[in-house]
């Protein structure tokens, strides 16, 4: 059956087309480069982080190509070490950390609370330029001698190697400020700019997740900055802090580093969980199940996330007591994540599930994140971690969480909010094919790494014993299919920009405020003040064939006698 907005003419003829939106209201280079509009800044972030992702992805494919055979395949030892370091640094600092908060969050936060912009629009632009500056430093490090310390900068290797550690650390230091600016801005915006009726428990869960993320960004990132400054001081001035030759303690560096970098894992995954909460509710056409549990679990993860950094160091030589305490605390942080997964499932129960592209990504997320989360149990258990630490099991685990989790949620969110951001729809068929490709190729790439890891394949190895070649080759084939699938995804989005039909204001029937304004929104987000609606009262939205999308029902929606699901599109 094909109904409604499969026939664009109807929608386009009758939908009110605003003459001006944030994309066409001004033109020229400076209208973008000097903009303080959060939406344009978000688009600049989006283009930038996707470029970083492309670079990180190419580095990943080089790594996988090299690992096709033991010994030399396409590069030598040192080049390989530089490549995996830069892959990690680029993906972590330039892509995943800013991906959802800075690119999607920046666009959505003000619109979702019915505001014109964030609290500090200039600071927002500043945070983008800091990102750019940090990125330039990191890229400069690649040109000026590269970086071969691993993205973790462990001392004393990083104080003794002759690659450009100082330049790269400066880059990460600057990126940290970008992250702090974004977090601070978001916290203030959410506290001060909500409309009076929008209490904390009427916030979309995406915003709860962004809020929890911002708290971590503001509290944890300074520690990374200080740590890297100390590292620079040690390298440049010979002040002994971490290097035992100068009287320092190398394990201290690990404590400092992971005090930031473990909470940073939650900077990466919390916003992803927020995206999934929105997608599951909207495409199950049901209020999210256990709103408060999900909201509180975001805060719980943010706070507990500060107490578990030592689980990266079970074999490091930290005291046995610390290892035991950190192991116990680590298990506590698994509970809020489990709560979220069960709540998403309960939301789908008796829903009306629409398998459009964003929902396909949401389902992939649940599958992949479940594996990522459950394999965390192996690593949290002390005795098992002693065997698995620093093997491919860990590599597979964090890719399931970071890529299977965050990247997949980012793509789901991008497809979900794409019509709002660009005003264009995309090909559902190709969108779903891209998603299926990413899902299958991802598993082919990373699942074999669990097996390699527990069989004893250490990570960051250029050369490896021949018995692992079969698994490495599976992984390499998977990685290239993954690259290909991501090209399909990019093709779908580029095609949508060029040829996509115009998007209605609310193509999905979601109740959060961003769908009350036109797609794309006007410069100040709303032509008229948004109407008070509960973010998960999906029955407040009714499908209007004339608009080709949904609009607010005139009457209080729940249990309305006219409500007839059969009139809504069964598929798109």
């Amino acid at each position, binding site marked *: 059956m094909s109904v409604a907005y499969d026939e664009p003419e109807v929608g386009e003829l009758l939908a009110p087309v605003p003459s001006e939106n944030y994309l066409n209201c001004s033109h020229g280079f400076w209208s973008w480069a000097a903009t303080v509009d959060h939406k344009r800044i978000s688009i600049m972030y989006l283009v930038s982080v996707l470029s970083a992702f492309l670079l990180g992805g190419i580095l990943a494919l080089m790594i996988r190509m090299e690992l096709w055979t033991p010994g030399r395949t396409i590069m030598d*030892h040192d080049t390989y070490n530089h490549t995996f370091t830069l892959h990690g640094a680029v993906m972590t600092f330039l892509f995943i950390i800013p991906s959802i908060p800075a690119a999607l969050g920046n666009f959505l936060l003000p619109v979702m609370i019915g505001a014109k912009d964030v609290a500090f629009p200039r600071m927002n632009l500043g945070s983008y330029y800091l990102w750019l500056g940090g990125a330039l430093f990191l890229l400069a490090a690649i040109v000026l001698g590269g970086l071969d310390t691993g993205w973790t900068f462990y001392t004393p290797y990083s104080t003794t190697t002759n690659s450009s550690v100082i330049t790269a650390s400066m880059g990460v230091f600057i990126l940290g400020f970008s992250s702090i600016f974004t977090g601070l801005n978001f916290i203030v915006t959410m506290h001060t700019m909500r409309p009076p009726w929008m209490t904390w428990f009427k916030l979309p869960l995406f915003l709860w997740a962004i809020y929890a993320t911002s708290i971590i960004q503001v509290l944890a990132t300074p520690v990374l900055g200080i740590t890297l400054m100390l590292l620079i001081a040690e390298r440049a001035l010979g002040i002994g802090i971490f290097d*035992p030759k100068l009287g320092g303690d190398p394990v201290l560096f690990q404590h400092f580093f992971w005090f930031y970098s473990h909470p940073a894992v939650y900077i990466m995954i919390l916003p992803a969980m927020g995206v999934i909460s929105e997608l599951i509710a909207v495409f199950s056409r049901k209020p999210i199940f256990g709103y408060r549990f999900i909201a509180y679990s975001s805060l719980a993860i943010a706070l507990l996330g500060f107490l578990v950094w030592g689980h990266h160091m079970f074999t*490091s*030589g930290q005291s046995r007591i610390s290892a035991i305490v950190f192991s116990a605390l680590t298990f506590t942080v698994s509970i809020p994540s489990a709560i979220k997964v069960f709540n998403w499932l309960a939301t789908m129960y008796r829903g009306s*599930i629409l398998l459009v592209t964003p929902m396909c990504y949401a389902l992939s997320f649940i599958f992949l994140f479940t594996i990522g989360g459950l394999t965390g149990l192996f690593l949290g258990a*002390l005795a098992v971690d002693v065997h698995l630490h620093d093997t491919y099991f860990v590599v597979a685990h964090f890719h399931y969480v970071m890529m299977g989790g965050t990247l997949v949620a980012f793509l789901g969110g991008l497809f979900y909010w794409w019509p709002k951001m660009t005003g264009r729809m995309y090909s559902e068929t190709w969108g779903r094919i891209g998603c299926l490709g990413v899902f299958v190729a991802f598993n082919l790439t990373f699942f074999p790494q669990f097996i390699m890891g527990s069989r*004893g394949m250490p990570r960051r*190895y250029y050369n490896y014993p021949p018995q692992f070649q079969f698994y490495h080759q599976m992984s390499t084939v998977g990685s290239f299919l993954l690259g290909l699938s991501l090209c399909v995804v990019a093709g779908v989005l580029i095609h949508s920009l060029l040829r996509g039909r115009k998007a209605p204001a609310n193509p999905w029937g979601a109740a959060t405020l961003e769908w009350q304004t036109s797609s794309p929104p006007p410069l100040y987000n709303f032509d008229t003040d948004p109407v008070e609606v509960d973010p998960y009262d999906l029955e407040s939205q009714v499908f209007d064939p004339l608009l080709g999308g949904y609009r607010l029902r005139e009457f209080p929606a729940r249990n309305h006698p006219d409500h007839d699901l059969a009139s809504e599109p*069964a598929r798109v």
Partner: protein
Amino acid sequence: MILAEGGGSDNGSFWFPAPSSSNASQVDSLFNFILSLSAFFFVLIVGLMLIFVVRYRRRPGYVQAPASDHNNTLEILWSVIPGILTIFIFFRGFMGYLDMRTPPSETYEIKVNAKKWSWAFQYPNGYIDNDLHIPFNRPVKLTMTSEDVIHSLFIPAFRTKMDIVPGRYTSMWFDATRTGEFPLLCAEYCGTKHSEMLANVVVHPSGEFEKWLEQASNLLATLPPVEAGKILFTRRGCAQCHTIDGSARTGPSFKGTFGTKQSLTDGSSIEMDENYIRESILEPLKKVRAGYRPVMPSYKGQLKDPEIDAIIEFIKSLK
């Protein structure tokens, strides 16, 4: 616990190499427990998800039945049950960890010295080998330190691993329950040849370890200096960076270079004689050959004079 004398070639299971130390089976059984628990929850979650997608997909004629949007009992239940299970996993991991990190009172002690990118295992009589030879079914304790950066000693077959940190001693212990050879790897990234910082663990059958140690310790007494030098050259890690076939690696090759003039990084030149080789072994960064980076670690205190003599004899013999 499996005790297998002479069964070292076993290929192990799908997830693991064959368990070969007294602590290995404990790790495996906890791993398998978590694995079955994870499999159960994975099937539950993904199974429900798929069932819901099929049953509740939006389609013509489908009428959505009302459903609640919260249920505190249910939510507390699915917070508490996983909570209890994780406490159980923590407890077993904790017990296993204590066993793994608490050596028995009577152990055979071996010192480990790690450096970029070779291992040196020193036995109680002072003999140093670059493979780890241990007796079967006898607790062995390693006291480890590093000369340069952090390394990590990992023996997959024993399911154990410990970082080796410069400036302090760390230790680990194990009791081999299977004879044969097992790979030993560096698990903490340490630079260029991290992936080639390998050694073998050789578990000798009962009674044979002592014989091996006595024979190996008397290398210089039983072999002519050139032969002994050749063995030391590979065993003590020189061969990691120096070839004997003329091709340059991290360091220069020694083929046909004895007695020749070589230029140094500071522009001067030097004759490659006994004194220069000896000095380079003990203070390698003093005079570095042109075209090479100053990366060689010092062997001061690790090679005895007769051993250095033997290595020099070996280098002399490389025509």
